């Protein structure tokens, strides 16, 4: 259960060193992506001018405010409230994000499935669990929006955030095949019969 501080981007070796229940704090660049962003990239053949190699992406569509571009707000957007959405909807994009763009870290809530787990194992990646619904806190870790691409998809643009002390976030799926979500799900399903028994199911009362 080690704590790791990463200056982004990272190498495959750094990511492969992580195991479930370690914690990670990110500094530097973090990219924000969402359903529409990835549908555009992987279904509609659109491209981005950003280099995501070795980087982390967070499943988000932030609340932002348009402002005049300045050193504080280079992209002309001030972050208002940046939080994290449910990852499961974006399961099929994990592999192409890694294979085509070199992404190493996916940050989200609720976990990803077996396809993502195999991509993490084969290509060297991890999933970090952020606390969903804790966006006010998460926003305090964002220094600025440095850049934005695919902004016609706003708020599901491809966001380039500058972060400081983004975390600590728990490693919930690692590159060695471990997944906290799969483990919790298996344990919960094993308790199904006991829960139904407590409810008296089967007694036809």
């Amino acid at each position, binding site marked *: 259960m080690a704590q790791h501080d990463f200056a982004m981007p990272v190498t495959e070796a750094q990511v492969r060193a992580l195991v479930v229940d370690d914690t990670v704090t990110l500094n530097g660049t973090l990219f924000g992506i969402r359903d529409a962003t990835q549908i555009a990239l992987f279904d509609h053949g659109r491209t981005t001018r950003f280099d995501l190699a070795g980087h982390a992406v967070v499943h988000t569509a932030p609340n932002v405010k348009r402002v005049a571009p300045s050193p504080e707000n280079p992209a002309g957007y001030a972050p208002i409230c940046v939080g994290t959405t449910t990852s499961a909807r974006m399961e099929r994009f994990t592999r192409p994000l890694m294979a085509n763009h070199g992404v190493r870290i996916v940050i989200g809530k609720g976990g990803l499935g077996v396809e993502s787990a195999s991509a993490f194992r084969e290509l060297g990646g991890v999933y970090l669990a952020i606390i969903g619904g804790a966006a006010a806190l998460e926003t305090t870790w964002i220094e600025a929006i440095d850049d934005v691409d695919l902004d016609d998809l706003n708020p599901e643009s491809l966001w380039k955030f500058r972060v400081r002390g983004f975390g600590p976030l728990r490693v919930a799926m690692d590159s060695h095949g471990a997944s906290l979500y799969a483990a919790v799900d298996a344990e919960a399903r094993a308790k199904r019969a006991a*829960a139904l028994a407590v409810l008296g199911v089967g007694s036809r009362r």
Partner: protein
Amino acid sequence: MQIAPDRIEEAAKELYLRALRDLPPDIKRGFATLAARETGTTAKAVLGTMIENIAVAERTNNLLCQDTGIPIYNVTIGRGAEVDGVALTAAIRRGCERATREAPLRSSIVHPLTRKNDHTSCGIAVPVIRFEFSDAFDGLKIEMIPKGSGSENNSWLKMAIPAEGVDAIRTFVIDCVLGAGGRTCPPTIVGVGIGGTADLCVHLAKVAATRPLGSHCADPDGAALETQLSDAVNLLGIGPQGLGGDSTAFGVHVEIAATHITMNPVAVNMQCHSARRASAVLGAEGVEYGY
């Protein structure tokens, strides 16, 4: 008593912003209850972060969650209130749009086929506006619920049959909670609708999911079932954020309606831990905001 549309518009705007920033006291108490009895180490830490977030939102006057949700306005028209329903509906839409533009808020609303976002938090039939009537008070009550998508995407309806009995309802609720896992942002309020038609059943589940913690089903059999189900779902060990623990749900809420002799419908709708809502009562002159 006539209530002018501009007052309704202002309240509709204010309610959206209040709901997004200020968690109701019953939900805060729910967090305290869960945190006090949670035994999992990870789960304790996760609950601690959620509680910290509530304080950060208050301190920074920020939104609790980035998901501005699907805006829902539940309007209760009291005995003495005279309203023009068309004007009232238009005023609520304007208030919702103004909140979005003036804050500004992320508009989370798109056309379902083109996925076009007008950046107003409005669209066809959205905000959802529902009307009820009450003889309990004189004015107009408006409740605002920004319903987050993580929980709303975990909604189910089963048209069970009478031969399956109440067991079908109990089993369905357990299986929905298992199926949702961490994707609903647990700890949740699990809303269960029982009876009615298919659409009424789903509506009841939403009413149940968005009811204050500590409230109970008005029907004694429904209330007994919600107590049983609340204990049972927290045996599953899914925990906050699906990372394991005792705190899978704040509780299970049940709402019921009579149904047909051939039918046994059950619906589940969930509310995430950011169980946001705000309300306003508009009288002859003043407005009183609450939860």
